[in-house]
């Protein structure tokens, strides 16, 4: 009787040292799959079947997370070809377009994913609101959610300047001049944000650091808390009215 | 026609002249050539007007203002028969070595030391564009 390569690999000591659970479909193994795995163990071993229904959450949180993941993974290679300096920053966009293999694809992906993430995050928030999923014990997670939304906006906004084309420059000028209007501190904030009084190379560098280091880290932390809280607070909550349906 | 003309001329003249039968013969290949042809034609034209037109005339009819008491009269370059009878090599040769060089009237001076090879080629290209149809 033939022994397949796959099964021989599964038999090997190395494989076993990495994956502790067997392949046979026992519930034990399936549980192990989840809690033996750093990334999966945010999940409980069992979930309510109804939470898997599309209409339960419309998977909006998941989609947002997917976008975030794509942005993280796609952003890193882009950084390899980007100099936060004038005019090189703009030229780098052209390099991506004309020279770097798949550069333009990656840039487009990053751009559209960013827009998508903002949009979906908002929808996610609305979904949670209309399902009244902010109610105890989930109050704090809602707050984190709001913070996440802000972080997302800031990320998208800081990234907006990096191509250093007319769109970026004036988009950011308009935005930051709104900040300026804040009483007392507005001027100051803008000054710190731009590293000067006008959108210049300083601003580019600062936005770059914010976009590539500060905000992503913040987002990462908040997301982990957010997701972890979801489980701690008793899993995803679907339509509040759901219960109403099964009245006698 | 102003843009197309040069292209076609280019196709029929310079490509064979440059001895690239294989590519030159292919009309599609020639059709891709307008910019190059146009630039070269421009250069050829400016050279012609500066150095040749005084005797051969702006249209190449051999009626330049300096022509009238020359004997023999300058060649009518627009004459289709003439154009047919001469290969590009012939034309370039006359321009290069002058009438005396090819056993014609010495009143046609040699330009071989005034122009470089490429300029001669460009003039020839323009000469072809003078053909009357």
């Amino acid at each position, binding site marked *: 009787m033939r022994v397949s390569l796959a099964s021989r690999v599964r038999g090997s000591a190395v494989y076993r040292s990495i994956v502790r659970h067997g392949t046979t479909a026992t519930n034990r193994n399936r549980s192990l799959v989840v809690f033996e795995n750093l990334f999966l163990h945010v999940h409980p071993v069992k979930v309510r079947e109804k939470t898997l229904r599309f209409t339960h959450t419309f998977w909006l949180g998941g989609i947002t997370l997917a976008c975030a993941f794509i942005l993280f993974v796609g952003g890193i290679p882009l950084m390899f070809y980007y100099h936060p300096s004038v005019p090189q920053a703009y*030229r780098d966009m*052209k*390099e991506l*377009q*004309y*020279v770097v*293999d*798949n550069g333009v*694809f990656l840039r487009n992906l990053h751009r559209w994913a960013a827009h998508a993430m903002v949009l979906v995050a908002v929808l996610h928030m609305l979904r949670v609101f209309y399902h009244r999923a902010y109610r105890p014990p989930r109050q704090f997670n809602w707050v984190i959610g709001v913070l996440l939304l802000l972080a997302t906006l800031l990320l998208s906004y800081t990234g907006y300047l990096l191509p250093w*084309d007319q769109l970026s420059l004036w988009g950011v000028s308009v935005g930051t001049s709104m900040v300026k209007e804040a009483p007392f501190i507005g001027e100051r904030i803008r000054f710190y944000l731009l590293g000067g009084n006008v959108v210049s190379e300083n601003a580019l560098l600062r936005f770059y650091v914010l976009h590539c280091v500060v905000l992503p880290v913040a987002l990462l932390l908040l997301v982990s808390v957010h997701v972890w809280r979801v489980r701690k607070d008793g899993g995803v909550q679907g339509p509040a009215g759901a219960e109403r349906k099964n009245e006698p | 026609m102003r843009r197309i003309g040069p292209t076609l001329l280019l196709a029929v003249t*310079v*490509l064979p*002249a*440059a001895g*690239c039968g*294989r*590519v*030159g013969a*292919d009309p599609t*290949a*020639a059709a*891709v*050539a*307008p*910019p*190059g042809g*146009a*630039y*070269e034609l*421009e*250069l050829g034209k*400016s050279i012609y007007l*500066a*150095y040749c037109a*005084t*005797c051969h005339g702006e249209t190449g009819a051999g009626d330049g*203002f*300096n022509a*009238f*008491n*020359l004997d023999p009269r300058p060649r009518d370059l627009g004459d289709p028969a003439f154009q047919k009878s001469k290969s590009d090599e012939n034309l370039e040769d006359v321009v290069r070595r*002058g*009438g*005396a060089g090819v056993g014609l*009237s*010495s*009143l*046609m*001076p*040699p*330009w*071989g*030391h*005034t122009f*470089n*090879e*490429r*300029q001669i*080629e*460009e003039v020839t290209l323009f000469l072809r564009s003078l053909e009357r149809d």
Partner: protein
Amino acid sequence: MPLRRLFAVSSLLFLVTLAVSPVKNALRPYRFIQREFRDLGMSRATSRKAMELYANRPVAIQQIWLRDFEDRVDRCTTCHLGVADAAMRGAPEPFRLHPATFHTPGGFERIGCTACHGGEGLATLQDDAHGVAQENIAPMTPATFIQSGCGRCHLSATVPDAPTLSRGRALMERAGCYSCHAVRGHDAYRSEAPPLDAIAIKTGAVWLRGWLEDPRAVDPNATMPNFHLGADDILALSHYMFGRPAPDALARRVAAAAGEPLGDPATGRRLFSESRCISCHTVDGKGNGSAPELGTIASAATRGWLIAFLRDPHAFNPRTRMPRYNFSDGDVRDIVAYFDDELRDFDAPADVLEPLRVNQTLAAKGATLFRNAGCGSCHASGPASETEKFGPDLDGIGDRRAASLDFGRRRDLPQTLTSWLVAKIESPRSFADGLRMPSYGFDADEQRAIVTALLAHGAQAVPEKLRHSATQPVAMIPGGRVGELFSRYRCLSCHQIGNRGGDTSTAPLTFEGSKVNEEWLVDYLLLPSSLRPILPERMPILKMSREEASLLADTFEKFYVDPSIVEDPFAGRAESDRDAAEGERLYTTLGCRGCHIIGMAGGYYGPTLTEAARRLKPGWVFHFLKNPQGWRGDIRCPNYALPDTDALRLTAYLGTLGSSRDAAAPATGKESTR
């Protein structure tokens, strides 16, 4: 659909979509083009070695990186692989060998491609690189305007090998573009247009109105454009101008002159032709046309004014190119008498020269109009600083994006900078109402030349080290007595010295001293003989005194010399080199008579050589014969690459010509640049 199947399907979908971009990438056009080039190259290769070079060519993006030229990167050579490859002569685009120009081959590594051709150097896709229909990418410069590229670095008025550009710059200079449009490097520009404060004593209202309505209708040589003024505006303007007080000095002169007795028309006619007025002016269209038509001059200006003006033009218009002839009072009266007799518009109304009774309100209206129309920009009597720059400044016009241009009403135009510029020059006011730029009536070629010149004004000046302003050193324009003579006789109106002066004359004077004999020059200045029967432009008889003439000749002899030209070419040469007979034979066999006249026979293109000996210094003749273009880039005389011996023999032959004074017409030689 069961989960596992959904999973399978979405996974496949996933795989496929992710594969698209890499595939697209692998199919980038330039890769195929480079393979095509490899095959073409191998088919054309002459040697096995060359064959291998083509075969082993890696498929990769090519670029020219110009670190110290605005850090440009030109990737054109990624597809245009043959530009510097002699084997690609006449190959189909994009592989064609670049046409031979001043900078190519050889200049590529220094100036790249986009410097002349425009377009997006960074791009590796055809449409992007050529800037086809791309708002934010520089379009390529059309072949017709390609010489604008030269103008980016070559800032001098005339650029050898770039006739269109040079012509465009000359036209802009003459048309006075710079008096309304600020342009880098032309801040000191002043139009030749006369100050208008003497109008009232010059001409009459009727004539002035006719002029204002359309200058070119009155005088085809007019440089003043058509402002499309309405009848009321014209009326107002004329009142304003006649309202301006003429300077007393001039007014007195004119009045006095008007009182003088009539002269003799016959003598006047003789003087008129001797003075070679049509070297600049025209009479019924005959003449050079760089100065006003004189066919109806007597109906355009009063007798008094004409007399006073001819005696001292510079008093009336310090900027005029007209020399101050050394006429006697009688001479001038005779000339003006000749005008009165023959050069008048016989159908003109009797009151054509009647002055105007000024209506102050209209005059006031005219004054505002005068300001708003920008007449002052050209006609102001003050220095350049006083004139107001009316139009938008033209720096960087060559790099404007079509999207940033206002096409106004001209929806018919293609959305390109060049078509916009051409239309602007052709009919400036067709874009919108209330535009002030007048129309100049340039023909298609002139428009093309001017647009070429305009496109040369880049957004930023090219780096210092690449700039190339003057071909020759700025000439020493002498001061003192000689300087006065230069200015009085306006030598620079026609002759070039260094990089200054007009191009009417075919003889630049920079090294005149090395070229001609002093005694001949004196005679020539006193009584210029025609060297080029064919040209209407000839040296006028300025009626200068012998003393003045010898002073000028002496100056040239002493100062305007080229040290590289030896005095006596025969020094230390074999006797056989002086063989004039042999030289004469050469003269015939080389076909010199095709262009030059000796005695009666020969062509009319080159200068007559009948009296060469009296005129030309043998050193110069030899120097010239050895390499005509070395004397001046645009010399039309072919370079025969004569060996020294032949050149010397020809020199010797010319040395025998007209040394005896019995030759028919006094004649001398000069080379032509018509």
